[in-house]
């Protein structure tokens, strides 16, 4: 879940509005609101491209009740024009708006295609500094022809040439990405990576048609600028638990599997090359093995791009993805080894032994470097309490340093980056502010997303640009061998692994693991780094073909296959406090059982490590008292905070499920007599009157709070947890208030039902009337309940702090009937400690929990 800070306040209003809107039906405003709203949407779209992308996603997930919400939003927008600008994505709700924005973004795309025409034209100029003189006139006819008389201008243009070129490429990439999300049907069938490669092909084709030289996927650019963000994103947000639990399997696949692939493909290729009539006689064994080592590694970028879209279950995802990350060390070693030998020509046993040693040095060294920087980063974040602004940068810089330092020694940069991210994260997150955390998250996602897009586009461009040596036999045999070796490798290795795994891998799992072995840009860049020769071109062509085959054919078919095989999908529910409790409970239980069994297994060592971490490491790396905080408590705090924010933000009023607001503390607490007294026995007409007054007050409250909240946008609302809690408390109170006023949340979506609900709830009051308070109290005491729970009384609708919001007669009326305030205080305190599970369910609404 991404928390958007800027949208705090309008969401809060909507929440308040939702409560009253069950009763107050917003009158349709004047007819020019829609155009205004549309205009705001337009402006908003222009303001932030990234938000627009999010919006496009939202359009796909459009909720059935969106229209109702949009109607309300437009009313809000009338009052808060300024805010509407600040949150462009909100405008996605209404169908009409959606259509409008789709059209708008299509215009964007067409603009993009225009700019695409400009980019190659310029690139052709910029790509060749050597030919600048000759190309300049051409360029000037393109865009700045009439300014030829001003040399100063052209000089300045030269200055900004490079950044301009880069920005144009990035802009092109982003606009393309944006465009794909507008057309939901296409992006449902074809993975984004395929579309991006396709765009790259188009761009490359245009560049070539104009007669320029397209910039290929430069290996330096790729390894130093494009790859690290993706890997850091993957490493920083690596799901640690499944990763460590399946570490053995992942390692076997990554190391043994990659070795097998490399040697099988290399050996077989050599065999094929020896066949007469293939014109491949000049390819020797070492070149073949080099080729095998390049082509055998599963690519993390491609895997991420495809697997993120198919939402496969955690186990399979981590198996394939983990393999793609950890096989880097093997690839690096094999690549350097064979590249070295290909020059030397001979291999001895000693070399092979050195290769094995090298593998350990490269992988463990990479991890070591990453760990050192990770600990440094964590330690630094201990002292950033007074300079919050630079916190995220430390994370990025230390990680990048880890990557570069590893690369200096030819260690595995990827493993170093992963180790750095994994080690740094828990400590950094405990130290930095929530805002910094969000920033880190956003930046990593943004960078990796841009990098990924660029990589695929460049892949397409290089395909058109690069010199090719197409040999049917070589290419086809390569593709077939890649598939065969992957399948054989996975089946063979799973057979061995399953003997040791507690949870076995099924046939389906094996199929997905084998089929998910996508190749990608890393292989291409490694091939690109080879010394120029005919063989290099031959290899590059084959590599590109394999990449295209895996990304297009496998990438496009994997989703239908997953559906067809009914492979378990990722479960949507997350952050359930009960699940967290049971995860912890199970950890301790299993450790205990292992101890009773008397052998030291996985859980035992994990427990030991946890205790060591708690006793020593945390004390050094985490500032203040949070270092001693148990995991469950920090989880709980995090969850509470998240709920608070979601509640405050409360994206869509219509989406709030009814169950959330209907279960409150009083339902699980043992009832005391106080609540009975708390509910006044009032006539229906009296109740209606009170309701009317309260309604007016709520609206007033909203008006008043608006200015307060707008101010709040300036001072950071999330910097202080207590402030959020306070706010949450109040929102919750308002909500509960509305509950007592028998406005079920669902009623606003279905106005006719509301009447019925009202009637039925009214019966509760009559029930209270008919039964004497004493009697009901005794009845409730019959419940099996421990004695001390009686002191924790449930809430009555009037709590002290509410009076701040409701100062009028209606409040006074109701309050007059409230029981003594002391009890109320207790309850308030109690409910402060509590977190209503409510808004979290927003996401789970369609989940398995609810029938």
């Amino acid at each position: 879940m991404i928390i958007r800070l800027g949208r705090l306040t309008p969401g809060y209003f909507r929440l308040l509005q939702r409560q009253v809107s069950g009763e107050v039906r917003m009158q349709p405003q004047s007819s020019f609101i829609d155009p205004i709203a549309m205009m705001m949407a337009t402006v908003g779209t222009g303001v932030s491209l990234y938000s627009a992308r999010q919006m496009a996603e939202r359009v796909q997930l459009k909720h059935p009740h969106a229209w109702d919400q949009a109607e309300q939003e437009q009313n809000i927008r009338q009052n808060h024009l300024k805010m509407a600008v600040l949150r462009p994505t909100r405008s996605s709700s209404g169908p009409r708006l959606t259509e409008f924005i789709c059209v708008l973004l299509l215009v964007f795309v067409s603009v993009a295609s225009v700019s695409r025409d400009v980019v190659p034209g310029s690139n052709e100029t910029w790509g060749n500094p050597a030919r600048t003189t000759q190309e300049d006139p051409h360029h000037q006819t393109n865009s700045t022809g009439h300014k030829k008389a001003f040399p100063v201008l052209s000089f300045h243009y030269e200055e900004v040439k490079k950044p301009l070129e880069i920005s144009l490429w990035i802009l092109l990439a982003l606009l393309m990405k944006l465009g794909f999300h507008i057309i939901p049907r296409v992006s449902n069938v074809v993975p984004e990576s395929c579309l991006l490669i396709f765009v790259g092909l188009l761009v490359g084709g245009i560049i070539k048609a104009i007669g320029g030289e397209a910039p290929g996927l430069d290996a330096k650019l790729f390894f130093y600028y494009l790859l690290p963000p993706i890997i850091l994103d993957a490493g920083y947000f690596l799901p640690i638990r499944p990763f460590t639990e399946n570490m053995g399997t992942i390692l076997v696949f990554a190391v043994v599997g990659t070795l097998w692939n490399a040697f099988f493909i290399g050996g077989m290729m050599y065999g094929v090359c020896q066949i007469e009539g293939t014109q491949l006689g000049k390819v020797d064994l070492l070149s073949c093995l080099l080729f095998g080592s390049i082509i055998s590694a599963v690519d993390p970028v491609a895997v991420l791009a495809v697997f993120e879209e198919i939402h496969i279950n955690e186990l399979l995802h981590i198996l394939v993805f983990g393999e793609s990350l950890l096989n880097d060390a093997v690839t690096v070693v094999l690549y350097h080894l064979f590249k070295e030998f290909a020059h030397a020509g001979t291999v001895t046993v000693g070399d092979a032994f050195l290769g094995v040693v090298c593998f350990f040095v490269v992988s463990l060294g990479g991890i070591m470097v990453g760990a050192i920087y990770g600990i440094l980063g964590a330690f630094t974040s201990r002292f950033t309490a007074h300079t919050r602004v630079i916190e995220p940068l430390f994370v990025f810089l230390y990680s990048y340093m880890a990557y570069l330092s590893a690369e200096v020694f030819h260690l595995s940069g990827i493993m170093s980056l992963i180790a750095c991210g994994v080690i740094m994260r828990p400590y950094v997150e405990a130290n930095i502010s929530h805002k910094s955390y969000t920033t880190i998250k956003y930046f990593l996602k943004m960078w990796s997303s841009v990098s990924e897009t660029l990589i695929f586009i460049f892949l397409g461009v290089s395909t058109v640009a690069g010199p090719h040596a197409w040999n049917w036999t070589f290419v086809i045999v390569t593709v077939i061998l890649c598939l065969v070796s992957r399948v054989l490798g996975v089946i063979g290795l799973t057979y061995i692994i399953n003997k040791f795994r507690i949870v076995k891998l099924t046939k389906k799992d094996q199929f997905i693991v084998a089929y998910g072995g996508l190749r990608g840009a890393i292989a291409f860049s490694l091939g690109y780094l080879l010394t120029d020769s005919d063989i290099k071109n031959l290899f590059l062509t084959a590599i590109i073909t394999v990449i295209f085959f895996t990304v297009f054919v496998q990438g496009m078919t994997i989703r239908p296959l997953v559906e067809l095989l009914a492979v378990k999908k990722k479960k949507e529910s997350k952050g359930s406090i009960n699940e967290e409790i049971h995860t912890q409970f199970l950890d301790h239980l299993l450790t205990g059982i292992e101890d009773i069994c008397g052998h030291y297994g996985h859980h035992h060592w994990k427990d030991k490590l946890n205790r060591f971490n708690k006793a020593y490491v945390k004390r050094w790396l985490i500032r203040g008292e949070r270092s001693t905080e148990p995991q469950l408590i920090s989880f709980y705090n995090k969850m509470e905070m998240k709920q608070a924010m979601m509640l405050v933000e409360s994206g869509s009023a219509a989406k709030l499920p009814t169950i959330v607001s209907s279960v409150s503390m009083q339902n699980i607490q043992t009832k005391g007599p106080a609540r009975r007294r708390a509910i006044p026995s009032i006539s229906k007409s009296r109740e209606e009157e009170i309701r009317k007054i309260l309604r007016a007050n709520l609206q007033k409250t909203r008006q008043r709070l608006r200015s307060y909240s707008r101010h709040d946008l300036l001072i950071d609302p999330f910097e202080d947890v207590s402030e959020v809690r306070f706010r949450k408390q109040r929102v919750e109170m308002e909500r509960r208030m509305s509950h007592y006023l028998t406005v079920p949340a669902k009623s606003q979506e279905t106005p006719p039902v509301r009447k019925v609900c009202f009637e039925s709830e009214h019966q509760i009051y009559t029930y209270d009337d008919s039964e004497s308070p004493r009697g009901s109290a005794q009845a409730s005491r019959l419940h099996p309940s421990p004695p001390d729970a009686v002191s924790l009384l449930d809430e009555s609708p009037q709590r002290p702090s509410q009076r701040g919001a409701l100062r009028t007669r209606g409040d006074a009326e109701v309050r007059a009937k409230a029981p003594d305030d002391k009890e109320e205080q207790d309850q308030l305190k109690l409910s402060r400690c509590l977190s209503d599970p409510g808004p979290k369910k927003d996401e789970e609404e369609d989940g398995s929990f609810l029938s």
Partner: protein
Amino acid sequence: MGALQSSPGQPEYIDLAEKTGFSFEQIGVLHKRFKQLSHNETTLRRDHFNEIPDLACNPIRAQIIEAFFDRRNYRQNGEGTVDEIGFEEFLVVMSHFRPPSLNMTDEQRESVRKEKLRFLFNMHDTDNDGTITLEEYRHVVEELLSRSGALGKETAKSIADAAMLEVASISMGHMEPDEFYEGITFEHFLKLLAGFEIESKMNIRFLNMDTTTLCK
């Protein structure tokens, strides 16, 4: 008293193997451990468990030990607790932690899942009335946090309350203000942990080889 020898294939083991699904080797290893824990007696008592040094720092030690003496975990529909257990009971309790086999039908998987969850449920439901009340749940969380000092006590309460609220909202759906949620029944417990793949989590590795000499 060493009446049972730990060599595999013993006739005494056939019965146990059928009952618990362990292999002869695993039973042998566990039997050896059993005798080690009970100092070569035929029964285990609570203080035998309390002597295990590795268990000493486990926050839920009491509950784990209690689970071994709970008749409900013996697969015989018994109730209440016992004071000492024989090897068979020990083995039956252990068998709740056996990993599921590879080729299982969905019904089998579901029954394994239910059985494992039932074990957890019984651990929480200390008074054996079929529901985990708020008090019992609070106790669970308090135990979990019992190693974190005074900090834990208050927080444990609110965590348990929050968890209970979650259960109530998941299992009951809409509740009127005067309704009372008594506690988590087993059905609710199943529903609650529907997304929690217990069948692939609540497993430990039972060794075929004897390594108990390595441990205290």
